[in-house]
């Protein structure tokens, strides 16, 4: 079974530039998550999709971050314009369903450096 795919693995941009990340979840997984992980901290949920609908985006800085999940499969996360504090690893995960009873499968992450 193929795992969660993410690209790119690394990205370096200057502040005020824009960047986009792509995620392909495990086939058949209805729920897709985007997390931000800062060094030394646990993952922080940015947005959670159930199929192609948003379940939770309460911690997504909507003035600069946007995400979509077309056709309930792949997803993209965009930052425009980037700030220095956006430097972090962006993790995509998927699961069969939503809630604490479902284990999450993570991709390798995208390490973003904003200079």
């Amino acid at each position, binding site marked *: 079974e193929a795992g*969660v795919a993410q690209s790119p693995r690394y990205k370096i941009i200057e502040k005020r530039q824009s960047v986009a990340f792509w995620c392909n979840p495990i086939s058949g997984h209805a729920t897709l998550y985007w997390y931000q992980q800062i060094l*030394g*901290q*646990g*993952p*922080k*949920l940015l947005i*959670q999709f159930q199929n192609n609908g948003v*379940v*939770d985006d309460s911690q997504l800085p909507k003035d600069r971050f946007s995400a979509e999940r077309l056709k309930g499969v792949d997803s993209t996360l965009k930052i425009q314009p980037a700030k220095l504090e956006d430097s972090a690893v962006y*993790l995509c*995960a998927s699961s069969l369903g*939503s*809630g*604490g*009873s479902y*284990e*999450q*499968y*993570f*991709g*390798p*992450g995208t390490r973003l450096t904003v200079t």
Partner: protein
Amino acid sequence: SQKIEQNSEALNIQEGKTATLTCNYTNYSPAYLQWYRQDPGRGPVFLLLIRENEKEKRKERLKVTFDTTLKQSLFHITASQPADSATYLCALDEGDSNYQLIWGAGTKLIIKP
């Protein structure tokens, strides 16, 4: 305020011994608690899930306990090996209709040969 606490300092354990990691939480009433392993440069990998009505869960050399009175979960690795060295994260649901997991910062475990 709501929070999850894991040992912030690295835990150094001699190979062959049992490693015990702690996850404490306040102001949550989770129905589920999960443990993940994260290696440098990689995403977390699921290890075990335990329900609020379960006291203990085992998988090979791993054991998790869940004490809802103490608001604490313990994660044990028996007969530890250098390959067990990693950061271990606990995550729990908020026990209501909110579907997201709340994550601890993780504990770095170092198994010395």
